[in-house]
Structures are given as structure tokens and as C-alpha cells.
């Protein structure tokens, strides 16, 4: 049985690994697959591994829970600015809503994003959490 959302499944590996697109003409990187560079219009776009650390650029706490998350509880959605300047929209986990701050260092996490149903496919992907570990070298 194929999942009801084949597009989500096809994009799974990009979502698992936080792969992005990089324009070989102007160097602009962005999240997700692209055929055309949003900055310069070039069609020379390659898939790249985005950095796994960054800082919180802006955030909001979601209290009005969507139907599929009705028992999840409030959660933090943020725009994370990665080390190379790429901005990613992501949930922030392992952090209480009152503790999130702009500029807070965060790192890539691998989490459950949702599920089709109790009997269906589980969707996994990237989220960010407060930095646990900073490379010493």
C-alpha cells in the first residue's frame, strides 16, 4: 500500500537530511528542490547538504493546534538561519515556549513530523533543538 501522499514520500530523503538547492551561477542556497534559482533565474541548480547548525532568526509559538496535532500541545515554529545564511522554517524541539530566544544557537534534529493515520505511514524529518554540542575544532 503506497502512502496517500506520494509527493511527501518522494521528498523524504531531502527532508530526512536537510538537503537544499544551490545555484551554481550565483551561489544562492535554499531549502527544498528547485529547478530554477529564485535569486537569478539560472537553471543550473544542484542538490547540496545544508549546514546542521544555525541560530533562531524569528519564531512564533503555535497554540491553535492543527487537527492532526490536537493532542500534541503548543509548539515553537521558527525561521532558523543556518551557518551559511540559508533560512529554514522548522519546529524547535527540546525547548519550552518560554525559553526560546532570537539568536539562540540550534542544531539539526531528526523527529517524527506526523503520520498518515494510526495505521498509516509515519513521516520523519528535520527539526531543530538548542545546541547540545559544539565542535571544538
Amino acid at each position, binding site marked *: 500500500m503506497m502512502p496517500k501522499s506520494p509527493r511527501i514520500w518522494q521528498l523524504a530523503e531531502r527532508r*530526512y537530511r536537510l538537503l537544499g538547492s544551490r545555484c551554481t551561477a550565483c551561489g544562492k542556497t535554499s531549502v527544498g528542490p528547485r529547478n530554477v534559482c529564485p535569486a537569478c533565474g539560472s537553471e543550473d541548480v544542484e542538490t547540496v547538504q545544508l549546514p546542521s547548525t544555525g541560530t533562531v532568526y524569528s519564531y512564533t509559538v503555535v497554540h491553535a493546534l492543527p487537527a492532526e496535532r490536537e493532542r500534541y500541545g503548543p509548539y515553537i515554529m521558527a525561521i532558523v538561519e543556518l551557518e551559511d545564511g540559508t533560512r529554514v522554517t522548522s519546529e524547535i524541539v527540546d525547548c519550552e515556549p518560554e525559553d526560546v530566544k532570537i539568536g539562540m544557537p540550534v542544531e539539526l534534529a531528526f523527529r517524527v513530523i506526523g503520520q498518515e493515520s494510526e495505521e498509516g505511514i509515519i513521516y520523519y524529518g528535520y527539526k531543530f533543538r538548542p545546541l547540545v554540542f559544539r565542535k571544538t575544532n
Partner: protein
Amino acid sequence: MSVFNDKKTAIVGYGSYIPRYRIKIESIAHAWGEPLEMLRGLRVQEISVKGRDEDQVTIAVEAARNALRRAPEVSAKEIGAIYSGSESKPYAVKPTSTIVAAAIGAPLSVRLADYEFACKGGTEAIISCISQARSGMIKYGLAIAADCSQSLPGDVLEYTASAGGSAFIIGHGSGDPIAYFEGQYSVGTDTPDFWRRDLIKYPRHGGRFTGEPAYFRHVMAAASGLMRELNMKPEDFDYIVPHQPNGSFPVEVAKRLGFSESKVLPGLLSPIVGNFYSGSSPTGLCRVLDQAKPGQRILLVSFGSGAGSDAFSIVVADGIERKRDLAPKVEDYVERKKYVDYSVYARFWGKIAF
């Protein structure tokens, strides 16, 4: 029984992961009106609790990524096998290893499978990687030992069943070794000490039956069998890391085997994080690697209900000094904690039925 005299089959990367949340056993006892004195014998103070969006797969991926960080010389494309050992897979049918493979960028040409043997699926995964690396079938294998274990509300298992795990990259004659395998010895019998029937949500156990004929018999037989075959004594080992279903069994089994308490304490995690099931003794091994010196010898003994034990003699190599600081240590995760009460714990676990 296998003795590896060539010192070439080695762990070249290791990594662990423990969720951030903890619950004190007082909070669980309070929820059920259980007197705390009844639980002192477990010697567990608090256990790790999965986050609301964590499961066995997410723990496996986090541990695998940390193992890769400690093996900078290994590309994910060189990993020829990924084996995941667990008793708490979110899918009954669909291997965790398939999701880990995608999450680390493993190649299409890769052997994937999951192992289940209660708390020793993880060491089975390690044995598969050892044998395939030694036989030349793979350059590197990734063995994962992680669980996110369910426990029946109100059952005594609730005081120990927790979430966490570790992963190991294993090669033979390649990479920068962190520790090499010297020997391996396993035992198994038909012992119904703990089980979970198909389609049943929570495991059941034989109560007092889980001690002597299950845990102690198998761990002792595997550890003594390995020492006998290697012609070694407890004095030859610097550390012993037995499976940790609670805080008292591992200390007691080490004592019965003739090891001093100082050799079991460095790898003892259950009093502060609980029982990671498949991830229990492997994460104890990681905590030892986080602090061990080259040349030191470790006796690792898993135990899986049902029942069986896998014992390994592991010698720390020079690579540990170069690689230890490349990823978070077990202690970094132990210290990162946020306490929750039983109601939040039950919500995270979906134990509240509607």
C-alpha cells in the same frame, strides 16, 4: 565462540543519544500510590522519557549520526550494511534500518535488516557487522542498538523502561580504530522471563522469574564462557558492562563474576536514565569509551529475555584519543535534562486513552 587474534576488526565510530526528558521514580510511584520503599531494590532514581515526537527510529538516527561524526574517514557511501536491534520498532513490518539508511545517505547497494531479541537485538547487530566485515562482505557496517520501550501503566517495568541508544561503525583492517574486538561468546535457552505477544501493546514478564534463571544465568554463562576461551580472568579486564535492567542486577552480576565494583560503575547508566533495552549495555560501552585509555580491556555482556546473552572482549585503541571529542558524549546527554511529571509522561507516550 570466536577468538579474533588479528586485532583488526574494530569499532571506528560510536555515538549515543538520550532524549532530554526525565521522570523521577517518585513521580511514577506517586501516580500509582505505590510506597517508595517497595522500589528501593531497583536502585533507579530516574529514567529518560522520549519526547512527544520521538520514537525508536529517531533515536536510532541520532545515534547513527553521532557514530558517523566520530568516523570522519568513513563516508556514508562506504557503509555496506545497517542492522538495527530493538524491541520497540514503530513499524511491526518495515525495517528501522531502511529509514536510517535514507537519513544518513547510505548507498543503494546496502544490506538492511532489523534484529529483535528483547534487550539484545543491538549486540546481534554488532555481531553481524563483525562477521561481514571480517569476511570481506562489507568495508564498514553500522550496528544500531536503540529502544524506546513501552511499559504497561502501573506495571513495575514502568520504573525502569526508558528511551535511548547507541550506534557503532565497524570495519576490518580499515579506518582509524577506536577499539578492536578480541573475542565473542554467546549463550541462549528457551526461558519465558519476558515477552510480548503479536498485536499486544505492552510486554509481560515472569516477575521474580526474571532474576536467577534468566538474567544471572545467561550473563554469567556468557561472560565466563568468553573468559575461559580467551584464557582470561576478571583481573585482565579494566571494565565490565553488563546489561542493565535496573541498578542492582549489573552490580550484583559483576560481583558474582569476581569483578570489583569500580569496574562496573563507569558503564552503569540505569540508576540515572533507566533501561534502554537493546541500547542498555551498548550505551554503557559508549560511556566507558568516553573515558577509557588505549590498551584498556572491556567486557561487554548483553542480555535478552527469552533468553540469551552475547559477550565481547573489546580492547581500546589509539584512535579513541583522536575521536572521542568529535561528537557529544553520553554524559552530555545525561546532563541535558528536563523533568516531567507522570501526566506529561503519559501524554508524551500516548498512555492516556480516549
